[in-house]
């Protein structure tokens, strides 16, 4: 198996990448179906921090122009 993977790097790479991508898409669909956001407190704080920083950057840019 390992030998085949090493002998055909492009097929192995394509296979691994497609499996990972499909897995991610299925996870997103599954999350949508459940309608639940798996967000921890840290993630919420980071998201809010990011949004606020973005807002601040926008305000600064508007002030400058």
């Amino acid at each position, binding site marked *: 198996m390992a030998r085949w993977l090493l002998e055909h*790097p492009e097929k*192995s790479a394509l296979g*691994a990448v497609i499996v990972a991508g499909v897995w991610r898409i299925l996870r997103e669909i599954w*999350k949508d179906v459940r309608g639940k956001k798996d967000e921890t407190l840290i993630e919420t704080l980071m998201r809010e921090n990011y949004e606020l920083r973005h807002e601040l950057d926008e305000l600064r840019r508007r002030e400058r122009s």
Partner: protein
Amino acid sequence: MNTCLGICYRLRHLLWRAPYSIFDLAMSAGFLAMGLHLLLFPDLFSRFDGVYFPMRRVMDQAMWAWVFIGCGGYGLLLVLWPRRPRFILRLLARMAVAFCLLSFALDNLSSYPPPMSGMLYAVLAVFSIWSIVRIRCDG
């Protein structure tokens, strides 16, 4: 003009604040450069036949160069785009870069003894696969 300014602003943000997207930026830029390098030195695969034999068996050097330029360029465009692109586009960009990295890593590891760069590519490939698995719709 606005898009150009936006791209410059995004680049500055990535370089100064170094968020997680810096990995995407580095890998995409790296593959774009590698593609150009392959075009600049068209006899690279034949000179180092021992290392690049599995890749050469699939496609010739120029085709690999264009694959790297395409994947790297697409990844670079997406990571520098001023507004957050759609989830599926971001996922595809990471998949494209991961494909290049993984095929390069496996190609390096398949020759005996594997060159030292093989380990680096292998670690980067594992992380790029991880970045696909952990990409967030709202990230």
